[in-house]
């Protein structure tokens, strides 16, 4: 039942997004604009500032993820469909899981564009260790989105949700962001520090387990008015 409901919610979100492409386009546009603006500042005469690309990649991922989080839950607020979801005879954590997977999918699509773009503009050797980079991005995205989904759902009825979401989200997800940046830096430095990258991947996995467990546990009490 848990997985079935999570899948239904995810499929519904995908169906809406395929129709409107609203969140995907705005997220992609924002992420691309963000990287382009930074490239003008940090690439002088074709030579980028050392290590800037990694930081900018993660900034673009996190900021565009924040945008996607707000818009996804705006849809559930309009028409109060979140109440209908909460009234379904399923574990409420399954609703959370479905929403989380939708956000992760959107962020992953953005990253598919961002990674080659950053690698090209900042001459960052992001593809030298593809599996390590994949692990860092997947785990970092999951960690950020797991907390973000919980906070975005919790703040849905707050009038100041757009301001409160980043204020609450960024401090809590700082460990994930730091681990992502340092892990990716270890991969792109010369020579690459593979053991250090693996350590940060392990740290990210640990953060994900903690954040995901807490979020699944707290979703139901936080969503009951």
């Amino acid at each position, binding site marked *: 039942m848990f997985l079935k409901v999570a899948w*239904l919610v995810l499929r519904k979100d995908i*169906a809406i997004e395929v129709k409107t492409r609203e969140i995907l386009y705005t997220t992609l546009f924002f992420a691309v604009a963000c990287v382009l603006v930074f490239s003008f500042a940090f690439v002088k005469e074709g030579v980028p500032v050392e290590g800037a690309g990694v930081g900018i990649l993660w900034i673009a991922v996190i900021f565009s993820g924040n945008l996607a989080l707000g818009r996804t839950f705006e849809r559930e607020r309009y028409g109060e469909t979140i109440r209908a979801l909460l*009234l379904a*005879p399923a574990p409420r954590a399954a609703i959370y899981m479905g929403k989380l997977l939708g956000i992760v999918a959107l962020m992953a699509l953005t990253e598919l564009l961002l990674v080659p773009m950053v690698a090209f503009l900042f001459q960052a050797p992001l593809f030298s260790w593809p599996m390590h980079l994949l692990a860092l991005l997947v785990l970092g995205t999951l960690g950020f989105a797991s907390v973000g989904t919980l906070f975005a759902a919790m703040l849905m009825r707050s009038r100041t949700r757009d301001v409160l979401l980043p204020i609450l989200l960024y401090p809590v997800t700082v460990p994930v962001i730091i681990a992502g940046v340092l892990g990716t830096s270890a991969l792109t430095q010369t020579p690459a520090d593979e053991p250090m990258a693996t350590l940060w991947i392990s740290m990210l996995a640990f953060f994900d387990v903690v954040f995901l467990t807490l979020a699944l546990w707290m979703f139901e009490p936080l969503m*009951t008015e």
Partner: protein
Amino acid sequence: MTADFDQVSLVDVSRHFGRRRAVTKVSLSAGRGEIVGLLGPNGAGKSTLMGMAASLVRPTSGEVRYGGGTARSLGPALRHQIGLLAHELHLYPELTARQNLSFFARLYGVDAGGPVEAALAAAGLSDRGEDDVSGFSRGMRQRLALERALIHQPRLVLLDEPFTGLDDRAVSVVTERLRGIAASGAIVLLATHDLDLAEGLVTRVVLVQGGRLIADEPAQAGVRARYRALVGGA
């Protein structure tokens, strides 16, 4: 696990939002076959009572009992027995009528084939099933939302202003539909400002004002006169 029940009872329930007391020590109950009209002016606490009966709003004090159990003891199985049509219609405007009904049917473990087609027919939208809800009039959305709330054949049907935006013919259809589901053994709790429609439809009238219960009596002719006598208004 099933969580069927013959009666829903709100026992001394209060709900405070910060300093504001939305509902204060209200007790009422409704049994199978009844259509209870929840009447009262704006801000009387009707929607909060509906939310508590739907298990979406937790009472600050008191409890809501479904037969012998509570929302906590019955868990998710209870929610299978509740159908809610709220002020906001709980529909996705980006999806078609059929997609909306199929999604909610599956969410309740109902087959998305026959029941969805039957719901579309009951809403008078069989020929508009593939149209996006965003293109529907308020009345069409209202009819669709009602069928969405009923698609899993709930025992407890909670309707907040179900006649909003409906034309005269649709009002007659919905009225008959509500009588039918009550006759089939559902418990219907209906919040409305339309006293003329309430008269002749509801079997019992519950009046609330300022978050307090001021009357709970069998429905009889002259609901409007009784309402004015107790609540006031020209």
